[in-house]
């Protein structure tokens, strides 16, 4: 039985094409992936991302515990700020990527991937129980079923949301948020975060508040060309940015160094889970690395396709983690793990796309760059 978000009826009304997404019945698209993608890049799109998991961690020692559990350095943020970070195991393998929002000095909202809610929660509890005596009375609560999460993304996101809230949205900088009474809801978190690479906001509100907020945003955005967007366009948007997706770019078998996420690992902070393994890997060096590839011929690269160094298919050097036709660039693009020596910019490699070997080139990422108008 698929789970339904609070917005299920809204998706049905809008003729969303509903699919099983990590156990949730969510729209993959409403009309067209490309149209939704382009709308989000040029105007604005609204996404139901309520399947994401939410934990609350609180207590006097909550911050020091989280700073031990996660790779980034939470001492760099304060109330009203958010941080992208990783949950690693002791081997440095990635259990999940997540965002920490500091609500109060002793209270944090942690947003995790839907497919990882149970694993993450277990890891939070395991690591905490090993350290309980050091950091007593930290509460870890799984509130995933109590939130509706709506992402409003795109260059017009701000002007669409502004009339609905009594706060100046210009004052919310990227990776910052406010928790206010807004949109007829007592407590809503309005964060300048997202997973598309376009400007925008993510809203966290009580589950049952979803439909009214969804409807008022859609109404406010009608004249700006706002459209509901499904998860397929969320995927093509994040691929254009080379944002990792758990299960594809990042898994237990990949480390932050390999995934190009070493900026989220603060080696100079005190001990944290995975630190020794990651220091070890840093000194020895990595053997594979995540890169962006642009195809030099037409075709559509997809997850799992193999990559070779030669056109004779002799020397396998990697695999595609995510690939698509880029709607913004109108070319095929891929994110891939390649063996170290082939990861230099402009290296030429061959992707086995179905029964053909197509030449591709290691390219700069993000694939998509915002223009001035945006």
């Amino acid at each position, binding site marked *: 039985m698929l789970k339904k978000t609070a917005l299920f009826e809204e998706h049905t009304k809008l003729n969303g094409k509903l699919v099983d997404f990590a156990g949730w019945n969510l729209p*993959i*698209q409403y009309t*067209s*992936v*490309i*149209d939704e993608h382009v709308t989000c890049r040029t105007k604005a799109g609204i996404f139901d991302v309520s399947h994401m998991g939410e934990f609350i961690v609180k207590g006097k020692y909550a911050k020091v515990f989280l700073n031990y559990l996660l790779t980034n350095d939470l001492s760099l943020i304060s109330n009203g700020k958010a941080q992208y970070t990783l949950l690693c195991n002791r081997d440095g393998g990635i259990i999940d990527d997540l965002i920490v929002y500091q609500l109060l000095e002793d209270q944090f909202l942690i947003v995790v991937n839907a497919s990882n809610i149970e694993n993450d929660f277990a890891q939070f509890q395991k690591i905490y129980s090993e350290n309980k005596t050091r950091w007593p009375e930290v509460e870890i609560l799984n509130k995933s079923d109590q939130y509706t999460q709506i992402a409003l993304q795109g260059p017009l996101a701000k002007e669409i949301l502004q009339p609905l809230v009594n706060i100046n949205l210009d004052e919310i900088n990227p990776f910052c948020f406010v928790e206010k009474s807004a949109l007829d809801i007592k407590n809503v978190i309005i964060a300048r975060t997202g997973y598309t690479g376009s400007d925008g906001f993510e809203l966290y509100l009580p589950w049952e508040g979803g439909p009214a907020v969804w409807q008022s945003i859609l109404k406010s955005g009608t004249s700006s060309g706002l459209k509901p967007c499904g998860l*397929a366009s969320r995927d*093509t948007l994040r691929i254009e940015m080379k944002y990792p997706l758990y299960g594809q770019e990042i898994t237990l078998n990949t480390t932050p160094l390999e995934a190009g996420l070493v900026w989220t690992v603060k080696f100079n902070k005190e001990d944290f889970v995975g630190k020794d393994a990651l220091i070890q890997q840093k000194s020895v060096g990595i053997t594979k690395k995540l890169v962006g590839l642009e195809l030099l011929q*037409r*075709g*559509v690269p*997809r997850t799992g396709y193999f990559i070779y160094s030669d056109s004779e298919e002799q020397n396998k050097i990697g695999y595609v983690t995510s690939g*698509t*036709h880029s*709607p913004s660039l109108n070319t*095929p693009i891929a994110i891939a793990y390649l063996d170290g020596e082939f990861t230099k910019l402009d290296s030429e490699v061959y992707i086995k796309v*179905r029964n053909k070997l197509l030449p591709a080139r290691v390219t700069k990422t993000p694939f998509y760059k915002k223009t001035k108008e945006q």
Partner: protein
Amino acid sequence: MSFPKDFLYTKDHEWAQLSDNIVTIGITEHAQNSLGDIVYLELPEVDTNLNKGETFGLVESVKAASDLYSPITGRVIEVNKPLIEEPSELNHNPHSNGWLIKVEINNEAELNDLLTVADYEKLVNELA
């Protein structure tokens, strides 16, 4: 969803239209709708000989790749080249401008194996 009456159909959601001994082949509206935005197309060269049931090309959408199967035996006499440059036309007009290839056939009896519009419409409705 439209189902042109003068077409024959396959279980793989292709259509075939006979005119003299030339069969025009395309994919159905149901096919384009299931695939979503089509971004890439591979079609055979003119003069390629196709056997019934043989793969003759490929359609890729943002979401999925789908092989094309020849509904009949014959020789390719024309390929819709402009479509390769503008694959989205397959989404917009699958039954007209989105035709794929024209094949000269030598055994008209093979057409009897294809589905009538009534059979195909029934098949699609069962999938819905």
